[in-house]
């Protein structure tokens, strides 16, 4: 093996590319890792939004215990590192007590984390809608729920779309700590290639490029959605 190590410097760039990505179908590692990253992120985003909206309503509710509970949850999540939360979910809460797949547990952990941030975004969005809008809705005889649904939330959603998009992007990048509980995501796949080829540069740059392209692609989609929503009210 030491011999192998020494020869690394003597390899041409093409040979290094081949060794890192082609030999033993190593590119498949990256592709599978990307798949895992996307799956976990997708589940986490859905959970995060559902939980976030729920927490935001609790936080804004007039019922003190609900508001307090939501506030405490958000406070704890925001006050502790995500890696620690992930490990607690896996090693303490769900790992020992359930037969859930690692990736599912991770998605739950990321979703619970994201929910706290989404809650703050949604809460801010609801508060950003002029109070007069709600009063106009109520004065027409609409119920509180209808006023929320047809008047406040659509306007809030438009206001928070950029922040929600940002949260989505942050979340995807944050899943790169999946390796801590042994899930082979995109980042960990790069790490595995590095360990086998003992070449740090190419696998890590490749991983970075894939994340970057993914993020750019999502930003592009979000921007288009934003523009479409803005056109609809031609202000």
């Amino acid at each position, binding site marked *: 093996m030491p011999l192998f190590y020494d020869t690394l410097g003597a390899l041409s760039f093409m040979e290094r590319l081949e060794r890192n990505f082609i030999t033993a179908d190593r590119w498949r590692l990256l592709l599978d890792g990307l798949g895992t990253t996307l799956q976990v992120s997708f589940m986490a985003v859905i959970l995060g939004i559902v939980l976030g909206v729920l927490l935001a309503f609790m936080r804004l509710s007039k019922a003190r215990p609900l508001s307090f509970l939501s506030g405490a949850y958000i406070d704890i999540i925001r006050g502790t590192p995500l890696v620690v939360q992930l490990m607690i979910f896996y090693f303490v809460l769900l790992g020992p007590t359930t037969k859930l797949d690692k990736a599912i547990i991770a998605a739950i952990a990321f979703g619970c984390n994201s929910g706290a941030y989404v809650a703050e975004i949604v809460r801010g969005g609801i508060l950003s809608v002029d109070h007069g809008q709600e009063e106009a809705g*109520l*004065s027409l*005889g*609409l119920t509180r729920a209808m006023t929320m649904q047809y*008047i406040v939330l*659509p*306007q809030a959603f438009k206001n928070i779309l950029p922040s929600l998009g940002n949260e989505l992007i942050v979340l995807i990048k944050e899943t790169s700590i999946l390796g801590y509980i042994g899930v082979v995501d995109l980042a960990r796949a790069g790490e595995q290639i590095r360990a086998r080829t003992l070449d740090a540069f190419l696998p890590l740059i490749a991983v970075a490029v894939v994340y970057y392209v993914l993020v750019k692609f999502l930003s592009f989609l979000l921007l288009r959605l934003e523009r479409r929503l803005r056109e*609809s009210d031609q202000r």
Partner: protein
Amino acid sequence: MISVEGLHKSFGELEVLRGVHTRVERGEKVVVIGPSGGGKSTFLRCLNLLEIPTSGAVLFDGIDITARNCNKPAIRRRMGMTFQHFNLFPHLTVMENMTLAPKKLGLMGKAEAAQEARELLERVGLPDKANEYPGRLSGGQKQRIAIVRSLMMKPEVMLFDEPTSSLDPEMVGEVLEVMKRLALQGMTMIVVTHEIGFAREVGDRVLFMDEGRILEEGPPDQIFSDPRQPRTRDFLNKVL
């Protein structure tokens, strides 16, 4: 029709309404005047339960609507309200603004609501604005739309909270015109305004409100020409 008895409203320590008594008959046009901060808006908002009175009663056709078990949306349906800042829904077209409530509350079908909206728009001279978004309308147009949006619910009484005070002067007339026509059709109206001309022409009775009470009330001619309270006189001197 509406009977207000000993109405009090406090926001924390601040006592904004300190015992308001009055009656409004069906078809009557009541104009409320008074200095800023005197509680005029709070009074109107207590009538349709946007604010819950601290104590006192508001009887609407004999029913105490401040009772805890009263169905607020059902009461509000019978009272239209327009606001100083119009509060049109910016994400909806004029047509959607107008038809949202009657449709969602199941009072009108889609076609019926659209037909009704078109007729109302015609009456306020804005038939071509149906598919426009509020952001593209002038203040006067917005307020006219806000009025007909309320009328879609076929209310029995209309509450107006300074409907012209955020408008450029040249747009005040068109909004008052719509209100005058509404008055001629027999609508019961309670109007907070500083438009003395309108009050004289349309009002049956003027209430002067200050510091949370009705300090003086009477027919417009008497209030504007011969106010009894020094406070009313001071106020009128400032606005006239």
